[in-house]
């Protein structure tokens, strides 16, 4: 057996395990989401299948696999089949790059599927490919509402990708690397990035919601406006694949937030006094943090109404993008002038917090930026007085 074969097999095994874990997590995520939403709306939610409804995902899975796979006549056969595969493929691949523990901590193996120097960039590249799944699915259905959903999703995802990429730029400049492991280890030494970049985190959070098409940004599948958007003509397992892709993307976004801003796979160090080495245990801390953000996704869904489409676009271009750019400038200013003069990271943290507070206070003042169409350039015509002379 050649030398390269064993690492390759281990990597393959890890990839399969990650994919299985993600798909199981997706299945139970649907149940948790429905139960939580029900709880927040003071009703029961699914509790019939198995104890406390725990077998509901199994029933759903069996149903969607054995349901008839419909295909509309006007569909573009090849692209119609390819789109869901592309969506779930990119979603699963993107998650593999996130490290779940320190090197060699998983029974001697590294707890990640692949680790690239351009880790964050590669992940952004993969998630930006995810838009093709939705986009092509909507187009290939050959019908009007999916088309509208596809157009909406592509415009939305491109717009918020910019805000997302720019808002993590400050973190990257502070740390000086795009490798996830370096990012996490830097935070283990200096403290979580959220302490210095709370403003960037707020922007990143908003952009992430838009990137994964969740409420209040779920315009591509807005039921009340365009039936089910890009999903309208899909049924059975293809529909389930799209759902899987959406939830896996949510998990990737949560893992990204945890890794970039909340210390990633490292747990709190003070627990080391109780149980030595607990902050270095693989997987558990990342899962806890992901779980928190997934809860946040569900919570927001139960709380906020959907934006109007033009508001969504204006919000992205007129608020998130300039503010993310401003945050980048702030970090650059800190690195170029404040740090040489002896002011530490805490000062950047204060500036960032002040920026967030100003945004909260000014929220109502700048609301007109996105809530209404821009004022027309044409001066309003004076109305003629009613009546004769």
């Amino acid at each position: 057996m050649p030398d390269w074969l064993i690492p390759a097999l281990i990597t393959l095994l890890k990839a399969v395990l990650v994919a299985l874990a993600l798909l199981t997590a997706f299945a139970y995520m649907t149940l948790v989401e429905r139960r939580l939403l029900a709880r927040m709306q003071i009703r029961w939610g699914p509790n019939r299948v198995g104890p406390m409804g725990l077998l509901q995902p199994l029933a759903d899975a069996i149903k969607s696999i054995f349901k008839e796979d419909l295909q509309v006549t006007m569909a573009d056969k090849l692209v119609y089949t390819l789109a869901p595969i592309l969506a779930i493929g990119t979603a699963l691949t993107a998650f593999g790059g996130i490290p779940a523990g320190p090197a060699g901590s998983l029974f001697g193996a590294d707890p990640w599927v692949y680790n690239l120097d351009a880790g964050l960039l590669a992940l952004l590249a993969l998630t930006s490919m995810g838009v093709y799944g939705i986009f092509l699915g909507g187009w290939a259905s050959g019908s009007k509402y999916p088309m509208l959903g596809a157009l909406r999703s592509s415009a939305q995802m491109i717009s918020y990708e910019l805000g997302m990429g720019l808002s993590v730029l400050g973190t990257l400049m502070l740390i000086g690397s795009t490798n996830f492991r370096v990012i996490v280890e830097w935070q283990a030494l200096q403290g979580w990035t959220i302490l210095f970049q709370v403003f960037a985190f707020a922007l990143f959070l908003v952009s992430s919601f838009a990137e994964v098409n969740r409420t209040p940004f779920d315009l591509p599948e807005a039921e009340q406006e365009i039936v089910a958007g890009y999903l309208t003509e899909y049924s059975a397992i293809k529909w389930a694949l799209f759902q899987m892709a959406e939830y896996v993307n949510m998990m990737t976004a949560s893992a990204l937030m945890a890794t970039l801003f909340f210390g990633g796979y490292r747990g709190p160090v003070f627990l080391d006094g109780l149980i030595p080495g607990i902050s270095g245990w693989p997987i558990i801390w990342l899962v806890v943090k992901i779980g928190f953000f997934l809860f946040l996704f569900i919570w927001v869904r139960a709380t906020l109404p959907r934006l109007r489409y033009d508001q969504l676009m204006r919000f992205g271009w007129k608020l998130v993008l300039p503010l993310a750019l401003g945050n980048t400038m702030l970090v650059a200013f800190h690195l170029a002038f404040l740090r040489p003069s002896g002011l530490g990271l805490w000062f950047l943290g204060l500036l960032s917090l002040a920026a967030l507070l100003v945004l909260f206070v000014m929220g109502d003042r700048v609301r007109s930026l996105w809530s209404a169409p821009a004022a027309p350039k044409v001066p309003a015509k004076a109305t003629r007085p009613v009546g004769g002379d």
Partner: protein
Amino acid sequence: MMIAFILLGALTLVGGVITIAARNAVHAALGLVGTLISVAGLFATLNASFLAATQVIVYAGAIMVLFLFVIMLLNANQPISGRDPIPFVRELAGLGGVVLAGAFTILAVSYKDPRPVAEATLALGGGSASVIGETLLTRFLLPFEAVSILLLVAIVGAVALVQRPVPQPDDVPDSEAELLTPPVGSAISRGGSQPVLQHQSLQHRNDEGEVRA
């Protein structure tokens, strides 16, 4: 690595052929996406990971989505039928392709490294973002800024093209004050001239009636 390079090169060519041979505009655009991703893979096999990621983010992830957006929005995905409006377009394209292929062959045969490969590899630093950024903003600052200005010009041009025309002032008086004190050459002073009146709308004539009364 060599096998991966050859495979990716073949995929690049396949994508390119699909791009020009597909009858459906969306399929052609997807072929181009395939080409761009394969080129990113080629960059990755050459240890230029930053360039590979940027290629996917910018070209495949953003620009091609906009291409597809426009194709779908304008419903331009019907196969084109009928003759090409430009005469000899195929012959010209064939000629251009031959010239280009010849140029590349000559380049490939006569290429000499500007500096030794080992030194260049060292300077590349594994293709990481920091090395590329530093090189781009020091040694290649002028071309970099020139490209930025080029893009800026393109953006300004696009905005200028899609802007709605500024509303031109018409002869219709807007307020009562204007109606009561008509400027020279307005509706009342040329009230007797028939041809002008014929061009004016019914509404306008009524307005004049009001004023005369």
